[in-house]
Every structure is written in structure tokens, then in C-alpha cells.
């Protein structure tokens, strides 16, 4: 995932071998097909349930593939393959965190939230609490996470454009970012949740197919022997044997090792708290299908990350660290360069276009989530106190999608080429701290109350943001955003190790301190409903 995406993701890597016409044709075909599908899916899209949750009519398999589409961003494809190729074993650890994380969703979150909520994470958190403050908190964390995540994706788009279309001028890239943003808003406006789900399904299928084909092809070159692949990779890498041992990028000292543990914790606990993941569970009719969704996602993610391991080491073996590092995109260009080596310009075109399509689809999913949270949590339940006309609510959601799309375009243009990869790590940390802790308490702890919920969400959110602002990511290191001044005092780049336990403590203490006790009637309703689905409207 995008953590690894360095500044100008991919900027113009392999441009010498790249053929803009093939790239554009493949990408254009993707956009044309998806827009057509979105248009066809849009016929019945006026009610809130249709717009937010696609009428809950998707099957577990469809939603599971779409979930993996939401989850597998361009950076997880390019970034992890690149990290493995250059830093070796440590890149593999990301894959493992991203995959194991789905067990949290399967066992503790998916089915219960499906039964409890209707459209957003706020539905679950506010179920038995004071509606307005809790919805405001849930919407805040949803918007913060979506915006961070989206900005990181958009910033990467500029570099990809350079690779795809061979456009290097800032103005040209800005123009294309704007076009990308508009296509994405169109997906959401025309298709609603149903349309974006189809986009995700198409994208995930292409991405996984491309990765599997590359892997099989590559593996064949090494006689289907992992040992041969590893020894060739180690032989070709300046790291030698160390390439296949842990510690390549996090082994420098005790602080970096601790940083790694912190990141690992945020990855494994963050996934099940990501609002755009949670929202997907409402597109299926019942808990059983939600369970099936997670199983399908796990299967997709499982295959995908096993393949990135082979692709990463394969790139080290066939392309070589030197060529990867000297390519304009740095380590992110490992997978495209490998594609060029094994399949020529056509395969490179396919891989680059798939990566671009991936960015587009992930941003569309995020826009959908953010607009739903604003319209449903903030407008309908806070401003209108739950009495909003559903037609107006959907209108507000569409309007919000346009505003968020514009913000993403402006942010993407401004952030183009900046090192904002940490934003995604931060999004995971916020999701693990603010969302997962309160979701789990809310579902499993009888006494949990409104004060505890607010403390948990805001405590986790504020801790994450403050710790990152005062971390080496922002100042005090050679690769910081602000180089002129050094005001960092928190040593770790990822706040998870501190902020996740902190939010659990906040939720616990807040509950004990809070005056309003838990409502036993609502608690009973939530518990019965979450486990059996009794009373959950379809």
C-alpha cells in the first residue's frame, strides 16, 4: 500500500521503453468500459439506499472483489514490489500486515457492523449513544482518513501520468490530474455506490490478473523454484545475502526497529477501521454475505501479495537494483521495469494503465465514502436531526462528492511530487486508533457510553495527528517535509504504537468518567441485532 510511494511516484520511470500510445489506448479502454458500465448501472439510483449502499443488492463475491479493489491501491502494487526489489525482505512485511488485517474484519467487525448499521460507520457508533455528538465525531474521523488517503493517491497520479503519457511539464500534469478527478466524480455522481462497485470489480479483476500472469511468467523463468529466484535476486543485489534477510530498511538501530513494530501494528489494526472498507459491508443484503465478502477479499489479497513477493524479488533478479534506482520513479518503477523486461512495451503499457486505473478507482471509492458520511451523518442526522428528506440527502451527497472531487484535484495538483506517502500510514493509524477501538468497545462492551466514544475517537485522532506533526516525518530528518526548522520530539515515524493503546485507554477512562450511563434497552437492541440481524432493515 501507498506508504512506500515516494515523492514523484514513478515519475517517468522507463520512459525510454514506454509507448504512450499503447498506454493511452489500454487506459482509455478501461475508462470507456467502466463509464459505460457505470452509466448502465445508474438507472435506479435515486433513493438513499440505492445511492449509498447500491440497494444492498450485491453478492458476497462481487462485494469481496470490489473490497479488494478498494484496498489494493497502485502504491501497494508498485510500492511493495519496489520495496522488495530494493530493500528486500522488509518489503514483504507490509504484505503480511495488509493480509493478516482481514482476520480482524472477518472475526470481529464485518458481520456485526453489517447487521447494525445502514450506510456509514456513524450508524454503528451512534447506535446506542447520543446521536449528534457521536455522529459528528465519526464524520470527522471519516473525513480526515478519506482526505489523507485521497491526497496520497492523487499526489502519485502526477508521476504516473509522466510514465503513461510521457508528459513532464507541470501544467500538463495538472491538466491531467484535473481530468482524472473529473472522471472520478463522474463515476460517483452517475453511478453512486452501484457504479463505483462495478468500477472496483473491473479494476480488481484486471489488476489481479495482470499480477498473476506476470508472476507465472516470471516464476517459469526460474524453473518454478523459489530458491533459484532468491539466489539470483541476492546475487544481483548490492545487498547480497542481506536482501533475503529481514532488516534491510528497518534494521539500522533500535529506533527504526521500534518504528517498524509501530507500523506493523497500525497496518494490522487499521484495515478494519477504514471507513471505505466498513461502508462496503452495507452493499450486501445480510451478515452471511458480508462474511463471504471478507473471505473473497482475503483470497484476492492473499494471491495478490504472494505475487508481489515474486515480482519484487524477480525485479531484483532480472532488472537489478541499479537500473531500478536510476529510473526516475526510483523503487516504484520496479514492477513496470520488470514488465518491460519480460513482456516488452505492450506489457509495460498494460501494467502502467492498470496502475493508473487503480488510482482512479481507489479515489472514486474514497469520494463515495466521504460524501456519504457528510450527507448521512452531518447533514441528515446532525443538521436535520434525522428528519431529512431522503431525496435531499442524496442531493447533498452528490454535491459533497463534487466538492470533495474539487478538493482532491486542487490537493493533487499542489501535492504533485511531494513526499506525502506518510499520509496513508497516518490514515491507517487514525483508523486503528479512532475507529477500531470505539467500534470494538461499542460492539462488545456493555458499559461503553457516549463519553467513552467521544474520548476514544477524538483521543485517537488527536494523538495521531499531534505525534505525526512532531515526528521526523515533518521536521528534523533529512527527508522531512520541513527542512528549515527542527521541532520534532516524537522519535517514531508511525504513531500507531502509542496512539492505538492511547485511544483504547481514552475510551475506557471516558466511559468510567462519563455521567450518562449506557442505555440498556439500546444496548440489548444493538447486541441482538449485531449477532442475529433482527431488526436490521434491508
Amino acid at each position, binding site marked *: 500500500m501507498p506508504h512506500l510511494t515516494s515523492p514523484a511516484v514513478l515519475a517517468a520511470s522507463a520512459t525510454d521503453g514506454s509507448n504512450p500510445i499503447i498506454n493511452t489506448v489500454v487506459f482509455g479502454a478501461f475508462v470507456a468500459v467502466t463509464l459505460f458500465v457505470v452509466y448502465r448501472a445508474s438507472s435506479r439510483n435515486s433513493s438513499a439506499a440505492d445511492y449509498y449502499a447500491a440497494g444492498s443488492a450485491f453478492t458476497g463475491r462481487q462485494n469481496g472483489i470490489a473490497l479488494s479493489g478498494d484496498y489494493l491501491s497502485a502504491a501497494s502494487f508498485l510500492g511493495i514490489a519496489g520495496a522488495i526489489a530494493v530493500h528486500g525482505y522488509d518489503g514483504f512485511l507490509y504484505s503480511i500486515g495488509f*493480509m493478516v488485517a482481514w482476520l480482524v474484519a472477518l472475526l470481529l467487525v464485518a458481520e456485526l457492523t453489517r447487521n447494525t448499521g445502514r450506510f456509514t460507520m456513524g450508524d454503528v457508533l451512534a447506535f446506542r449513544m*447520543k446521536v449528534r455528538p457521536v455522529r459528528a465525531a465519526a464524520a470527522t474521523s471519516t473525513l480526515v482518513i478519506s482526505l489523507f488517503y485521497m491526497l496520497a493517491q492523487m499526489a502519485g497520479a502526477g508521476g504516473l501520468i509522466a510514465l503513461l503519457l510521457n508528459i513532464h511539464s507541470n501544467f500538463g500534469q495538472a491538466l491531467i490530474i484535473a481530468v482524472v478527478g473529473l472522471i472520478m466524480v463522474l463515476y460517483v455522481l452517475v453511478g453512486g455506490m452501484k457504479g463505483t462497485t462495478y468500477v472496483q470489480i473491473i479494476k480488481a479483476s484486471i489488476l489481479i490478473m495482470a499480477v498473476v500472469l506476470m508472476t507465472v511468467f516470471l516464476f517459469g523463468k526460474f524453473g518454478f523454484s523459489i530458491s*533459484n529466484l532468491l539466489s539470483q535476486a541476492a546475487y544481483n543485489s548490492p545487498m547480497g545475502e542481506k536482501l533475503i534477510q529481514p532488516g534491510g530498511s528497518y534494521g539500522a538501530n533500535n529506533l527504526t526497529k521500534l518504528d517498524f513494530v509501530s507500523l506493523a501494528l497500525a497496518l494490522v489494526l487499521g484495515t478494519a477501521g477504514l471507513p471505505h472498507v466498513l461502508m462496503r459491508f452495507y452493499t450486501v443484503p445480510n451478515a452471511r454475505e458480508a462474511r463471504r465478502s471478507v473471505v473473497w477479499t482475503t483470497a484476492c489479497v492473499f494471491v495478490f501479495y504472494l505475487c508481489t513477493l515474486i515480482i519484487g524479488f524477480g525485479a531484483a533478479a532480472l532488472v537489478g537494483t541499479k537500473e531500478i534506482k536510476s529510473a526516475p520513479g526510483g523503487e516504484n518503477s520496479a514492477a513496470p521495469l520488470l514488465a518491460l523486461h519480460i513482456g516488452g512495451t505492450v506489457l509495460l503499457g498494460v501494467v502502467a494503465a492498470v496502475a493508473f486505473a487503480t488510482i482512479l478507482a481507489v479515489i472514486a471509492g474514497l469520494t463515495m465514502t466521504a460524501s456519504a458520511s457528510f450527507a448521512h451523518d452531518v447533514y441528515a442526522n446532525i443538521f436535520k436531526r434525522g428528519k431529512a428528506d431522503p431525496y435531499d440527502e442524496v442531493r447533498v451527497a452528490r454535491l459533497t462528492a463534487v466538492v470533495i472531487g474539487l478538493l482532491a484535484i486542487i490537493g493533487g495538483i499542489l501535492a504533485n511530487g511531494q513526499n506525502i506517502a506518510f499520509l496513508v500510514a497516518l490514515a491507517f493509524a487514525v483508523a486503528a486508533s479512532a475507529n477500531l477501538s470505539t467500534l470494538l468497545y461499542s460492539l462488545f462492551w456493555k458499559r461503553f457510553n457516549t463519553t467513552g466514544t467521544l474520548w476514544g475517537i477524538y483521543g485517537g485522532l488527536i494523538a495521531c495527528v499531534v505525534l505525526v506533526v512532531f515526528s521526523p516525518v515533518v521536521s528534523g530528518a533529512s527527508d522531512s517535509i520541513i527542512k528549515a526548522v527542527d521541532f520534532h520530539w516524537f522519535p517514531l515515524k508511525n504513531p500507531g504504537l502509542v496512539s492505538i493503546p492511547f485511544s483504547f485507554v481514552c475510551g475506557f477512562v471516558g466511559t468510567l468518567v462519563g455521567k450518562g450511563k449506557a442505555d440498556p434497552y439500546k444496548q440489548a437492541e444493538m447486541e441482538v441485532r449485531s449477532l442475529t440481524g*433482527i431488526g436490521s432493515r434491508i
Partner: protein
Amino acid sequence: MQNVAQTSATRNTIEDTGEIPVLFEVSETERLSRRQAGPDYLTIQASPEFRGLRGRFRRFVFPMSLLFIVWYLVYVVLAAYARDFMSIKVLGEVNVGILLGAGQFVSTALITMAYLQFAKRRLDPDVEKVRRQAGV
């Protein structure tokens, strides 16, 4: 339905008055419809069938979650701090680190399948039973 609402309300007024505003935060129409037509959640929650279901669910997912998180953290900590151990070669170039990493993939798949089986055999029938009793 009516008496459930009363029991919970009376008990709360004595215990804690802060309870009432919480109830009224829910929109009037939604609250009324729920109280009139909704199933009797307190009774369902207290029924042995539901308690059995809840217990069975929690006895599976809590230990399992603890297990995979501990196993994951052990792996992460080993990768960060026990480099020599992780670098021991087992099969050709394949070392302990790669095998343990692959082990995480395998354990994730196994736990997923175990939960699927468990849910199908032990949870879904119980959910149906509780739903039937509640008349849904």
C-alpha cells in the same frame, strides 16, 4: 413492547436521570416506530438461546483473534529483533524468515476457513433459531 419501554425507563430514572435525554435524541418518528413494531430486544437478549449463541460466538472469535494477533506480533518482533534466527537457511536459499512469512499466509487462510466452517455449522443455525423465536 409497551412494558419493555416502561421497565427500562423506570429503572433508569431511579438509577440515573442522564438516561432520558439519550433516548430522546433519536428522532421522534423513528423512536415511536421502533417501540411499537420492533421486537422485544431485552427479552431476546435474556433468552437462553441468544445467550448460547453469544457465548459460542465470543468463545470462538476472542481466543482466535488473540491467537492470530500474538502470532503476527511474534513474527514482526522476530523480524525486527532476531535477524540471525530469521536468516538461518532451511531449504536452499529459503530461510526461516521466508518460511515464517509464508506461515502467516497459511495461518490466515486456515483461520479464515476454520471460521467459515464454524459459522456455518455452529452459528448460522442458532441465529435462525433465535430469529424464529423472535418471530422475525
